[in-house]
């Protein structure tokens, strides 16, 4: 145990001496975690500004505008004098949509000549905004029709309750599963936090292993562990496993305790295990890269790039069932894909814990690959010809 302890001490000293390492491994991820949490604190998106062109200016058109304004997502911020001006306000980034009420709306409705119409143009430049607004504005137009029809039927002597049932013969109720507050933040925020975690894990791991080669201290590193590369590597990584596990617990605490994210899972420990495994998997990728390339700088570029791309591949932003099959297959090479799957199943969907085993095993494979490359790491660590590469 003495050699292992000496090795750990050596690593902690190295860590403490490097201001850059402390910044990259602790200060930046903690700061970013706090900023992310504050950024998504509200959890839902309300009151996106929209423009209205009211060419009718009647009681009916004003009623429609009020209905638009009372949706959760839309907020009538500008009244424009022309359609052109409304589009301009979208291009200037001031509004997200334009509601067009042509002149004669009320007259056409009363005349019953089928000429009444309204329309909306939603800017598709921002996918979340446009999705929410398209949904809510469509709902408003439908509800507006039902209301107008009920009134028209009322004028014909049909009582309101019956008229409403006639005007709205098939009502539908939406139920959002696994996301009681309909908040996209509950999916996006954890994804972003854990992404920051795995990027940090990747670059720090590559640095702490690779700098031994760059600085030519790898032989001393292995010697401190009594010549055993396994012991040397285990002692080197152990403090960081602890550090990053603490970081992940910090993230989880903020999410579940302070942001009020619901936990539908059966066993919180599965989630902690998932965190540990994803940390180990990205550490493994870092070690594999250094062992194979023997070049810290190159490994940093690749490890950082792979970790960052994990978010796009994991299916949280664009679902895997929509990807090209080749891309969906590539996604399986990223531990993050399994972690996000585990996270969604175990914490939001409340799936049985046994379903996490496959994901944990997949992440474990990365560690096994690293284990297979430990001899190669030893060769690289002990041969000065691999030292000093930049």
């Amino acid at each position, binding site marked *: 145990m003495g050699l292992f302890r000496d090795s750990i001490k050596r690593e902690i000293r190295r860590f403490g001496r490097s201001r850059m390492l402390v910044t990259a491994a602790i200060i930046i991820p903690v700061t970013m975690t706090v900023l992310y949490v504050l*950024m998504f604190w509200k959890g839902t998106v309300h009151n996106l500004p929209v423009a209205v062109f009211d060419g009718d200016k009647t009681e009916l058109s004003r009623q429609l505008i009020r209905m638009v304004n009372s949706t959760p997502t839309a907020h009538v911020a500008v009244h424009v004098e022309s359609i052109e001006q409304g589009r301009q306000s979208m291009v200037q980034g001031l509004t997200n949509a334009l509601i067009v009420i042509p002149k004669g709306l009320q007259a056409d409705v009363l005349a019953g000549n089928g000429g009444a119409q309204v329309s909306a143009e939603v800017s598709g430049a921002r996918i979340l905004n446009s999705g929410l607004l398209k949904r809510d504005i*469509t709902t408003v137009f439908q509800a507006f029709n039902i209301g107008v029809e009920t009134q028209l039927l009322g004028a014909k002597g049909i009582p309101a309750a019956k008229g409403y049932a006639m005007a709205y013969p098939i009502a539908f109720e939406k139920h959002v599963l696994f996301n009681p507050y309909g908040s*996209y933040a509950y999916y996006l925020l954890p994804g972003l936090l854990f992404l920051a975690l795995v990027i940090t894990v990747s670059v720090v791991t590559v640095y702490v292993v690779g700098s031994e080669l760059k600085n030519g201290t790898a032989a001393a590193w292995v010697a401190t562990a009594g010549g055993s590369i396994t012991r040397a590597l285990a002692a080197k990584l152990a403090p960081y496993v602890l550090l990053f596990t603490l970081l992940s617990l910090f993230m989880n605490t903020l999410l579940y305790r302070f942001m009020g994210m619901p936990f539908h899972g059966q066993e919180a420990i599965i989630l902690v295990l998932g965190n540990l495994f994803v940390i180990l998997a990205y550490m493994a990728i870092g070690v594999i890269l250094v062992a194979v390339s023997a070049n810290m700088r190159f490994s940093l*570029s690749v490890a950082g790039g792979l970790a960052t791309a994990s978010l796009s591949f994991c299916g949280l932003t664009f679902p895997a069932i929509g990807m090209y099959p080749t891309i969906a297959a590539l996604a399986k090479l990223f531990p993050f894909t399994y972690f996000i799957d585990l996270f969604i199943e175990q914490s939001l969907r409340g799936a049985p814990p046994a379903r996490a085993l496959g994901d944990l095993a997949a992440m474990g494979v990365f560690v096994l690959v690293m284990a297979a490359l430990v001899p190669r790491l030893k060769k690289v660590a002990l041969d000065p010809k691999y030292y000093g590469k930049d």
Partner: protein
Amino acid sequence: MKRFWKITKTEFISIFKDGGAMLILFGAMLIYGTLYPLIYAPQVVREFPVAVVDLDNTPPSRKLVRMLDATPQADVRYSAQSLDEAKALFLDRKIYGVLYIPEGYEKRILAGEQNHVSLYADGGYFLLYSDFLGAVGAVVGTAGAEVQVGTLMAGGLNRQQAEWTAMPVAYDVDMLYNPYGGYATAILPPVLILIAQQLLLVGIGMVGGTWYEKGTWRKFRDYSATRLTFAKATAYLFLYIPLMLYIFSFQYKFFGYPMNGNHVDLLLIFLPYLLSVIFLGLTLGALFRKRETSMMMLIVTSVFFLIVSGISWPKEGMPEWIYALGRMVPSSSGIDALVRIRTMGGSLSDVVPEAVTLWALTGVYGLTAVLATLRRTRELQAAAEKAREERRREMEEQ
């Protein structure tokens, strides 16, 4: 001027001879510029699997199911006997939505009573959820209109009158600038311009750190900090303007992103964008002492900068001070300006606030770059002075 070009030339050589810097500045730009578009290339998800629970199983309920199946979004792949069965399919990721039709659906239609159908969607996949909601909404609306027309015609109206009464105010909701609501069209332009910033920052920081490691700075310690800053910036500007035009013209065309706006307006935004990024990079580069520092510090910020720009999570959803702080990063204004010109077809006059912000950032980071460089050259001058002093003292002692 000769000194100016000497610095620019040294910077060029530092970049081109450095495999690491080349990989970041060019390789990564091409790899990411192609890989990310490929991930999102399908743009929308079509025909995703859903289940129906049709407890009525009558001609009108089966018709509703057929209509849902016919939408481009949903593919009715399973027919479950109960909601529990459907939920099990959900947990197995076999389906992404459920339409539930209660018993007595036909009876209520014939009796002129209101029917309630339910849809269940996965709240985790925002796109699928929205699409499914839209599909069911459209299907139910059409089916409802048919029912109404039937009822009203039975009450003595002719078909046209019945149709007008069933939908007194015709409506439609169009998507501008991105007609199919494609994910890539919305998200890739911001990602590409952000990647340019991040790679420039990392690359410049790497070259700066290497200059320190290898002692290249020493050769230039007597140069003016302003000249050093501007000469180095010139090198990166030369390298990146063609690269940007390649990405935002050729790559754009290849992946079919909207190419509105004119090229001059675009260039007039790229100029302050690149300059502010380069000056920010030079500021950081003059502070870093190691090659790898820029990667250790900056890679993790990429996604954060994308989010803080407000392009994927709207600014209305975040605290104002964070959004305002985000404006200090060039990508925030750069993304807004690019989207509004290239995607939405705006002109320079539509992005005045963004252009002003970018020029202001150019000024601020230009100044910080000069100051950071000055600090470095002073440091080296002092070190050189000290060394000379020591040598003189040694000589005197001998």
